[in-house]
C-alpha cells in the first residue's frame, strides 16, 4: 500500500496507477465499498424477505424490533472498530468504509425507532410519551437515537470540511450513543444478560484501544 496521505482526501484519487503491479489491486479496491454496501443491506433484505414469506414468527413486530435494534448496535460497534483495525493492521483503506458503516448504523437504528413508533405503538403518543418519560430503557434508547441524528446530518464531506476539528469532537459522541445502546439493551432483558454483556465488553475494549492510542500519541 502506498497511501500516506493523512488528509480526508479519498485515497483512490492518489492511487498511482502507472506503477506496475498495483494495477491488479485496483478493481478489488474499487469493489470494496460497493461490496460492503451490499453486504450491509443483507439484514434488511432478509427482513423484507422474511416479512413477505411470513417467517417472522408469532410476533413479527417484536422480531423486527429485535433484529433492527441488534443490527443498529452491531453497526455502531463495527463503525467504532474501524480505526482500531486500521491501526492494528495498517490496512488504511478501511477508513473509507467508516462513514458508510456509521450511516448503516443510523439506518438500522432509525428503522428500529420507526418500528416502535409505527408498528408497536401505532402513533399512540400518550403511551409513547409515558414510555419515554417513565421507562429508563426507552429513555436511554431515545437519547441515544437523538444523539445519532446530528452525527448522521454532519457526515457529508462539506460538513466535515466546514466543522474541522469540531467535527472530530462532535463525532466522538458515537461512543456515548453506543454505550447508551448497550445500557438500553441491558435494561430491557429479563434475567438473561449474556448478549448485552458481550456488546458491552466489545465496546469497552474498543474504547480502551482508543484511549491507549490517544495517550501514546500525546506522550510523544
Amino acid at each position: 500500500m502506498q497511501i500516506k496521505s493523512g488528509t480526508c482526501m479519498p485515497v483512490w484519487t492518489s492511487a498511482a496507477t502507472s506503477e506496475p503491479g498495483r494495477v491488479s489491486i485496483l478493481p478489488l479496491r474499487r469493489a470494496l465499498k460497493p461490496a460492503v454496501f451490499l453486504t450491509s443491506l443483507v439484514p434488511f433484505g432478509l427482513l423484507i424477505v422474511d416479512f413477505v414469506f411470513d417467517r417472522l414468527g408469532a410476533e413479527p413486530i417484536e422480531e423486527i424490533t429485535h433484529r433492527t435494534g441488534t443490527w443498529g448496535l452491531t453497526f455502531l460497534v463495527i463503525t467504532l472498530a474501524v480505526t482500531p483495525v486500521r491501526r492494528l493492521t495498517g490496512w488504511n483503506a478501511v477508513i473509507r468504509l467508516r462513514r458508510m458503516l456509521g450511516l448503516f448504523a443510523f439506518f438500522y437504528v432509525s428503522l428500529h425507532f420507526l418500528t416502535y413508533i409505527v408498528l408497536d405503538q401505532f402513533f399512540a403518543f400518550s403511551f409513547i410519551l409515558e414510555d419515554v418519560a417513565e421507562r429508563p430503557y426507552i429513555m436511554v434508547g431515545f437519547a441515544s437515537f437523538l444523539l445519532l441524528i446530528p452525527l448522521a446530518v454532519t457526515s457529508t464531506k462539506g460538513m466535515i470540511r466546514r466543522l474541522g476539528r469540531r467535527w472530530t469532537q462532535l463525532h466522538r459522541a458515537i461512543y456515548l450513543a453506543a454505550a447508551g445502546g448497550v445500557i438500553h439493551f441491558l435494561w430491557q432483558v429479563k434475567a438473561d444478560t449474556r448478549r448485552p454483556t458481550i456488546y458491552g465488553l466489545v465496546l469497552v475494549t474498543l474504547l480502551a484501544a482508543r484511549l491507549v492510542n490517544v495517550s501514546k500519541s500525546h506522550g510523544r
Partner: protein
Amino acid sequence: MLIRRPPDIETSEITDEKLYWNRREFIRSATGVVAGLATPSVLAACGEPRRAEAAERRAARDDELTPYEDVTSYNNFYEFGTDKRDPSRYAGSLRIRPWTVTVEGEVHKPGVWDIDDVLKLSPLEERVYRLRCVEAWSMVIPWQGFSLSEFIKRVEPTSHARFVAFYTLHDPEQMPGQRRRILDWPYVEGLRLDEAMHPLTLLTFGLYGRTLPNQNGAPIRLVIPWKYGFKSIKSIVRVRFLREQPVNTWQAEAAREYGFYANVNPNVDHPRWSQARERRIGEFRKRPTLMFNGYADQVGHMYAGMDLRRNF
C-alpha cells in the same frame, strides 16, 4: 388431527382441531358467552345476564383462538433457552414418560404419583382461556385438563396447609437451558390454597385436543388464567403444601418486578413497561388489558380488601 394422546382421554373428549371453529361458533351463538369464560359453572349460569362491564364484554367477544402453530412456537420456557423459539427447537430432549409427581409437606396423603394415575383422577375437560404474559402479549388457548382441586382433594391437605408450591423438573441433561444459571433452578411457583382450589385453576395435560407439546410444559402443568403466564408452571415434578408463603422463582430473581400474586392488573405497571395494554398474538393494534385478565367476576372476591398495588 391427533398425534399422541394419553390412553385415558376418551376419544369423545378430544375435539378435532377442524371442529374448533364450528364449535366455538356454536358456543357463542348458543350462549352469548365467550369461550374464554366457558367454564362449566359459567356455562350453566349463562342464562342470566352477566354483570361484566360493556368494555370487558366488547374486548372479550373478539377472543379468537390463537393458531396452534403460534401457541407451540412462541414460548417462554427458559429451561430450553431464553429465545421464544428455543423451546420449540430444543424441547425434544424432554422425556415425558415415565413421569412422577411427588406430593409432600402439609398433606395427609403424601406420596409419589405416576402421571398416568393422575390422569385417571377425573375426566378431562376442555377450557378455552386467555393467557396474558407479563411481557404484555396474550393468546387464547384451548386446554385440556381438570381443576387442580380434584387432585388436591385426593391428597388431603392438613389444616395447616395455607400455600402450595410447585416445582419444575431440574435436569440439565433434558433441559439444556438449565446448563446456564439464568434462573435459580428448579423453577418454583406458588399459590395460596384458595387460589389453588379455585375451579378455574386447571391441571393441564393437553392443548388443542392433543397431548401437551413438550415446549408447552408437558406432561403436566398449571394454567391459572387470571395471573400472568409465569405463574402457570410447566413440567411439574413436585407439589409441596406449606404453612408459609413460598418465594417463587421470578420473585427471587427480581422482587421489585415480579410478585407472589402476579394477578393480571392493567393499573399496576411493571417497573419497566406498562401493563395497561397487550398485543394479542396475531393482531396488530394493542388492546386494553382487563382486570384479572377478564376473570374478575370469578376470582375478584379472593382479593377483596387487599392492596393490589403492594401485593402485585
